[in-house]
């Protein structure tokens, strides 16, 4: 799976949990919380959806790795590859 595909998966999850957000111009290098109205509960939703839909576990210590789309891709791509 490519970085771009991983980013799209994350964006698809965000579109479900934060349906009011405009995701058409999310900058991959900028922290998600700096450009979208996301709180800590929303990040837990992202973690839950990765678990439910993709059987991917994100340990609490790794939550900061989900900060931006770029960091999500870098962190999650190996997990999707397993």
């Amino acid at each position: 799976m490519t970085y771009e595909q991983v980013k799209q998966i994350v964006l698809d999850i965000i579109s479900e949990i934060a349906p009011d957000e405009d995701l058409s111009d999310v900058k991959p290098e900028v922290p998600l919380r700096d450009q979208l109205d996301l709180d800590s509960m929303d990040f837990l939703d992202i973690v839950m959806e990765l678990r439910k839909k993709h059987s991917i576990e994100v340990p609490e210590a790794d939550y900061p790795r989900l900060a931006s789309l770029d960091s999500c891709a870098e962190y999650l791509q190996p997990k999707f590859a397993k």
Partner: protein
Amino acid sequence: MNHNDRIVITGIGLTAPNGNTLADFRQALLTGQPNIQRIDMRYIGPVLAGVCDFDPFIYQKRKEVRNGTRAGSIAIYCAHEAVKDSAINWEAVDRDRVGVYLGITEHGNVETENEVYNISKFDYDTKYWTHHHNPRTVANNPAGEVTINLNITGPHYTIGAACAAGNAGLIQAAQMLRLREVDYALAGGVSESCQTFGIFAGFKSQGALAEHETPNKASRPFDMDRNGIVVSEGGCIYFIERLETALARGANIIAEIAGYCMNSDAQDAVLPYPKRQAECMQKALKQANMKPSDIDIVNTHATSTPQGDEQECEAIRAVFKDSPHTYINNTKSFIGHAMGAAGALELAGNIPAFKDNLVHPTINVDKLDPKCEMPNLVINEPRKLPEVKTILNNSFGMLGINSVLIIKKYSA
């Protein structure tokens, strides 16, 4: 009683299965328009229910609706409508002096059942249990969602009072206003109960769940063929304040709270007890400094169960035996049993009588049960009175909880 102790209603917001504004709700009650439908309930199959169709997105973002509860959305809708109806300059109100007091029959069943169902898809592994569960199921949830949405920093809580809860919310608010704990209150009751299979299954096991081939005929208090409760959702929230505050801002005073009482049967978990119901009405009358014959409308609690209706009639006959000008009706025949919202919603459906002097009827009485005969029971057609000045509202619930609220037309 001085102006500070007199408590008045200055705004009403509601959603019922047959109306999302008081005007529409009243119109439906006067023109015989119930709205009960058959819905598909998880594990059970088709059941009869009263479902509201208000638009939650008027006052909430999509994420708020997704993360919150149905009861929260109902409460937010009703609270906004009540504030709007009060015509208060909301932006100028000190939100620290606003209290939110909402009656609930139960809360958390819907959300818990949904999560159990959710983890059943994952072999009951609890790591799939949502982190939203606790904020959704804490008992103060619907009132708390209102405070977050309307930026209210005064007190909020729910009053768990079974099906007596709608009146209980208003009573609590009146007490807090008299204690000067708050200057304004958003008070009433809410229910999301038609989304929990447990309530339907429980009533079914109890032999108390209504069934009828025509859904709108299923809720039929006092009729010979009544066979149980139609579970409904709904909400009704009042904007209430001390008379002095209302007069100072030139508010439209819709009604005044004249008296109330809550008591307990101390008898049985589910069976009603007419003696204590009658005492509750009598104590409310005493607090209102009224005689039974001073009451123009008694809005009954009757839920369309064989025994419950009969016993409330016994209590009413005992209290109003010498009240030839007191008229009796029932709102559940239109909307089913809106549980925690029932008392507040049913009272609201009668309040326009202060202007139009009409008693809305009890519908679906095709053959009156002789055990439910009461003088002046208004059946199937509205009844015009010379003037309606007082309404007594009954709401009773499981574990033997009774609430009676009396309101009167405002007069200086």
